């Protein structure tokens, strides 16, 4: 049994806006029978170019149906430009959250929406062609699709990409390719907004600044590395130069956790926050 929210179950049991709009201005179709889920989204604009009517047809599980239903409710009354800004995370949030393994349902909603907008802009006929190289052949997921979810959802691991797009969830042969994409985007992200180096700052940090930077460094630098191995880390407290953390997930059971703590966590915090920091594991 999945841990679905009441809102997911409500939209599954009582889906809103099922069907096909008469003489639609935009049609988006994504997914296939082979993939296990598919969504057809149609909409019609009013004279003010706002989405007057929108309907969906979905083949898929309870959360796929709920995500589709939620999407139609969310974009009704919006302009194309406003609708375009709806992300898959917005759909998941609207439903009070989705299980991580089901995030691909919200991504499917978002993809159908973009496809429908594309078809509207190209005269209501053209369906979206696959953009970019197909990375996952089992589920037909392209490089473009993967890049989009990684950027928009700040994904850090191959496993997360699989939860969000299904890519890598079949034969698994493309996992290496996915990792390359994830790493590339992470590198781009760091280049765009590098965590401020301690030495570059060159001045004493206030406690609040210090905590903020520690959190930022954990988020951007440390957590993605740990998550690759199924682990995680939680910041418990900062007392002077002592940073107290708790290891979670695989890290909590890891034989080399002390090594991770000193050589990864402490080294990164020294590099990006302050050279005098010492990392300690919270006493159990």
């Amino acid at each position, binding site marked *: 049994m999945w841990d679905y929210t009441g809102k997911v179950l409500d939209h599954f049991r009582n889906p809103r806006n099922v069907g096909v709009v008469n003489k639609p201005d935009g049609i988006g179709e994504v997914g296939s029978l082979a993939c296990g889920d598919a969504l057809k989204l149609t909409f019609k604009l009013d004279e003010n170019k706002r989405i007057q009517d929108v309907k969906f047809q979905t083949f898929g*599980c309870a959360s796929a149906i709920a995500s589709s239903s939620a999407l139609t409710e969310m974009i009704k009354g919006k302009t194309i430009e406003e609708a375009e800004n709806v992300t898959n995370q917005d759909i998941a949030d609207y439903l009070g959250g989705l299980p991580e393994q089901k995030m691909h349902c919200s991504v499917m909603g978002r993809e159908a929406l973009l496809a429908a907008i594309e078809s509207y802009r190209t005269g209501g006929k053209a369906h979206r062609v696959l953009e970019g190289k197909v990375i996952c052949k089992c589920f037909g997921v392209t490089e473009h699709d993967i890049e989009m979810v990684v950027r928009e959802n700040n994904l850090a691991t191959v496993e997360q990409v699989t939860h969000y797009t299904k890519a890598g969830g079949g034969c698994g042969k493309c996992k290496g390719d996915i990792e390359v994409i994830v790493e590339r985007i992470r590198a781009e992200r760091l280049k765009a907004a590098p965590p401020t180096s301690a030495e570059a700052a060159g001045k004493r940090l206030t406690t609040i600044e210090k905590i903020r930077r520690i959190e930022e460094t954990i988020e951007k630098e440390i957590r993605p590395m740990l998550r690759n191995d199924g682990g995680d880390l939680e910041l418990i407290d900062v007392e002077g130069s002592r940073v107290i953390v708790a290891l979670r997930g695989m890290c909590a059971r890891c034989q080399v956790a002390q090594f991770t703590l000193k050589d990864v966590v402490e080294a990164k915090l020294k590099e990006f926050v302050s050279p005098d920091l010492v990392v300690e594991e919270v006493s159990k």
Partner: protein
Amino acid sequence: MKTLYFDNNATTRPAPEVIEAIQPFLSELWGNPSSMHVFGGGVRKYVEQARELVAALIHAEPAEIVFTSCGTESDNTAILGAGTATDLKPNIINTRVEHPAVLGPCLELKDRGYNLIELNVDEVGQIDLAELDEALRLGPAVVSVMWANNETGTIFPIDEIARRVKAAGSLFHTDAVQAVGKLPIDVRRTPVDLLSLSGHKLHAPKGVGALYVRKGTRIKPFLLGGHQEDSRRAGTENVPFIVGLGRAAELARNGREEEQARVAALRNRLEAGLLQRCPDSSVNGDLAHRLPNTLNISFEYIEGEAILYSLSDLGIAASSGSACSSGSLEPSHVLRAMGVPFTRVHGSIRFSLSRYNTEEEVDYVIARMPAIVNRLREMSPFVTRGG
């Protein structure tokens, strides 16, 4: 809300008679059967009685029954234990539709350098005996073929398979977890060397199983560090549940034929009713050789998890081979190995019955299913038929 339970290939309700039999061993009779005092050692005779009852169900000798903690442990013990009992690295032969409890240890042996051959199945889930013969020509092998498949109920010709394996001088294990209690099993007639069974599939609690080990069969124990079970499985016996398994075996043996005929009649009623009332539905598996309690039925254009949640809202418990309900992204390996089209795999539902199902329950499912299927089909982009 009352639960209408149609998921008996997943687990079964512990029989009231079994629960009653277990009670004394949780309260006053809690001693260790290995103890050298009457309080503990006196409990041993109940373990041995249970062994006799389990042996009787499959016509084995009591000494050939090893109690384990579950069907998975039985399968692991059989395959790892037999595969590594000699210095020789034999071939491992199984089928593409085995339970993960068999596939797992087979893959483990493959990792250790054994040669693994997976036999293909046809569209009803049966293996080709000629392909088996060919594999057996490669040299000594540990062969594991399930007695009946958990998803489709397809029954394999185990007599014939076992004879061929033995004629080739190889060792034969069968995962009979779904078959024991439902089908007549007689190890005096069927030359299996190792046979796995599980308590909770036949109305005993979860946490107890057994492995039949034919006299003279060499296996290495899986759990080490104790003399229990004739040094074939270390660890203090789970006396209450072993007693429960014995009682469940006794219940399964008494009147099995009439009981399974009644279950088959209910299953057939369910099958006919659903096929008749839900268009574009079809049955998966070997209709001529199928467990009496199992119905695997596909509804085109819709997805299994959505069907299961709809059924669950009505208190009906079943299961599905769809990807979404499995927690993975890939649908049932069994249906895919059979070459069932994706359209049917995603919308496959397994109803598995037991002695506790009633005609009323079956009729309720038949009555409610069309509305569930129609509602989901109205939402599906793939339905092309009118109305």
